[in-house]
């Protein structure tokens, strides 16, 4: 399949079989650790599982959004990376599994699911029409069905284009992306409210959906950047990628880092300033126990360090610095989710042990395994996408 007017140099190569082995090993280690931690303390393990699930969902949502944005705006710089995104975004299929421990321990994680708690709490009684177990499960299922639908459609269109270079696929993806955006906003918000905000059922913040979206966009970008750079460095993607394509990734990471900080600051500042007890109580364990150190680290890890790291123009193009920035951003997002959720489990202060590592390891292992399996004998760039040549020869 050679294109006539361009000079794409791409040969399909399989990822080393080692990758699958590594993935499976990590997966097994993760499974063992997760199992052990579940046996020791099911509620604690469920909380950890919830964080890992929301992190995996973040990556999936972020990647889905990037794909949608590319179709919607007709961007070309990200086209050569799209196929990687389409495989990596399959993490959306995996993450619901991590919800299982939570479903088994609903009362422990979500106190609103416990009728005994509801009976005593006048405010929670008012929330029952929304916060009830049945509706919760329905929303969860609906969210994943909708996200899977859009993701699968994008992927299908893109893969079909490999064998049949027709512009109709581009068009249909474009329409699909426009249709997706409202659904994306609604279900991202629902997931954020249900799985993060309702862990402290009395607390509320209208910006919370945007907050989770900003973090998700970051996590998705971080994961995509990391994988793309690793693959491209070893020549699995088309020749001539880099430079301004990387720059765009870096610029996006930089911009969204700022956006997240803006949202996080707005949320904190408004609650701090107005000082209403029904809102500030959420910050009290985070500011008046040993959690405060984690709180202090959040702006540092998620804003200041990445900000300075990718501020300069050359650093946005340098694969090494981008790799570090991507890892930092993903770590920052996990840190953020941990900080959002864990004080609900343990108000008294910060804690950490191998239990907290089990589920992230499980998630990483599952993702690598999945990625290694689905990319087998597949193109890693959308070889016949009409925008691909422009994407590869992309110059600002």
């Amino acid at each position, binding site marked *: 399949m050679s294109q006539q007017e361009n000079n794409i140099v791409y040969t399909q190569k399989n990822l080393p079989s080692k990758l699958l082995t590594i993935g499976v090993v990590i997966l097994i280690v993760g499974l063992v650790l997760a199992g052990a931690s579940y046996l020791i303390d099911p509620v604690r393990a469920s909380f950890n599982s919830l964080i890992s699930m929301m992190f995996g969902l973040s990556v999936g949502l972020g990647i889905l959004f990037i794909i949608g944005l590319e179709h919607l705006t*007709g961007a070309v710089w990200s086209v050569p990376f799209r196929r990687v995104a389409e495989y990596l975004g399959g993490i959306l299929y995996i993450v619901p599994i991590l919800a299982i421990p939570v479903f088994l321990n609903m009362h422990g994680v979500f106190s609103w699911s416990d009728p005994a708690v509801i009976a005593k709490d006048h*405010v*929670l009684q*008012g*929330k029952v029409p*929304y916060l009830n177990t049945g509706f919760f499960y329905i929303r969860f299922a609906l969210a994943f069905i909708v996200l899977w639908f859009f993701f699968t459609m994008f992927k299908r269109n893109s893969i079909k284009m490999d064998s049949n270079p027709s*512009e109709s696929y*581009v*068009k249909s993806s*474009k329409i699909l992306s*426009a249709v997706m*955006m*409202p659904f994306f*906003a609604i279900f991202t*918000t629902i997931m954020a*409210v249900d799985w993060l905000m309702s862990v402290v059922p*009395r607390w*509320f*913040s*209208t*910006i*919370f*959906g*945007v907050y989770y979206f900003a973090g998700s966009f970051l996590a998705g970008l971080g994961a995509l950047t990391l994988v793309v750079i690793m693959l491209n460095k070893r020549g699995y993607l088309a020749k*001539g990628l880099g*430079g301004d394509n990387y720059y765009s990734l870096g*610029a996006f990471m930089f911009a969204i880092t*700022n956006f997240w900080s*803006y*949202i996080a600051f*707005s*949320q904190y*500042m*408004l*609650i701090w*300033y*107005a*000082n*209403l007890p*029904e809102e500030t109580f959420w910050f009290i364990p985070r500011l008046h126990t040993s959690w405060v150190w984690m709180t202090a680290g959040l702006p540092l890890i998620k804003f200041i360090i990445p900000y300075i790291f990718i501020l300069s123009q050359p650093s946005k193009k340098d694969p090494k610095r981008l790799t570090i920035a991507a890892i930092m951003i993903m770590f920052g997002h996990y840190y953020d989710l941990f900080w959002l959720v864990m004080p609900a489990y343990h108000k008294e202060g910060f804690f950490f042990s191998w239990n907290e590592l089990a589920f992230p390891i499980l998630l990483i292992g599952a993702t690598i395994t999945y990625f290694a399996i689905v990319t087998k004998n597949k193109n890693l760039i959308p070889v016949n996408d*009409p*925008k691909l040549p*422009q994407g590869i020869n992309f*110059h*600002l």
Partner: protein
Amino acid sequence: MSVDVLHEPSVIEGRPTFHEINEHITKPTEVRPDRKYMIALAITSSLLALGATCMIITHWYGIGMWGNNNPVGWAFDIVNFVFWIGIGHAGTLISAILFLFRQKWRTGIARFAEGMTIFAVMTAGIFPLMHVGRPWLDGWLFPYPNQNKLWVNFTSPLLWDVFAVSTYFTVSAIFWYMGLVPDFASMRDRATVKFKKVIYSIFSLGWRHSNRHWQHYEMMYLILAGFATPLVLSVHTIVSFDFAVSILPGWHTTIFPPYFVAGAVFSGFAMVQNVLIFVRKIFNFEHIITLDTLEKMNKIMLATGMMVGYAYGMEFFIAWYSGSPMEMFVFVNRAFGNYAWAYWIMVSCNVIFPQFFWSRKIRRTIPLMFIIGVFVNVGMWFERFVIIVSSLSRDFLPSSWAYYTPTFYDIGILLGSFGLFFTLVLLFIKTLPVVSIAEVKAVIHGSQPTHKGGNH
């Protein structure tokens, strides 16, 4: 529907030569104004005169001339301030954010939008200055070592506004002026009248189109765009803080910052679109301000309109979810209470009408998009009205609840603000190049070297 996926629509229709661009863009500044222009100017300056009269009377007798009452202490004055600041945002968005995103279609409208930013901020700035009641003492808003050895309250969002708006104005003006410098140089070299030549020479700073300068100039443009982007977000964010740091239900909600920014961009684009539709017709700029550009603007309006809709929905949901009776009351009151009419004007204009932009046909039909643009502006004005007035009129103390009705002076000043804005826009069109000559030249077909060979 035909989408040519390989080529983004050309920024400039046809293939004008560089010289034709010069001719074309500078033409409005070099010919005498025609009848249409004079009629337009007459209308806008009459409105301005009306507004100025109302303002002078207000200054003379005090702001008791307005309909503000207790508890509605903030009304048209602040509504108009927020509205006009919001209008300004589209300009910076087009000139800075789209520049960072390398959206070439912005070139045709960037200068114009920047100009509108400056005029909108000027118009907006008048309102808080009047609102303080004794405008001649507005200098006290700035921290300077004064006779009372007092400092301004740096923790007050109202002071943040002073900093935000003045910074925004300054940076926008610099951005605008720096974009104009090369064009002044081009106009200087075209000028035949000595007087014009002197003026243009002064403003062009002796620009020589040197590539040793262009290099830094482009860097500067990038840096300023990089600064202007967070700045524009910060300005409306800070405006939203004016409300959100309080504890008034309906004002205190954490989504306000991004919601206000989206709303500002929304109304700003509607305003830019409305004005551009006239400008391209009157001055024959159809091939520079193309239909594609207008369509893109309509798409952005659709997107930001939905963001605003999301915020409305989220506010309602959380008001219920919060379990706070005050919050619940305020939102039910908004939709079904004393200002329900304003609320439903807002929702229909901001959320429902923009949905027509899903249709490509409507996006590309000028009369229809114009009408929707007007609706959006009306809707966004009412959004601020609903937020400010309906929340205040039903505050914590039922005994002091009151209904606000604007007086003649309120409405006169509102009309006058439109008069001021459009008068400035009209004067701008006639005196300065409304499209950036250098930038347009740089993006037309064949203007950049073909990078033959050379794998960068």
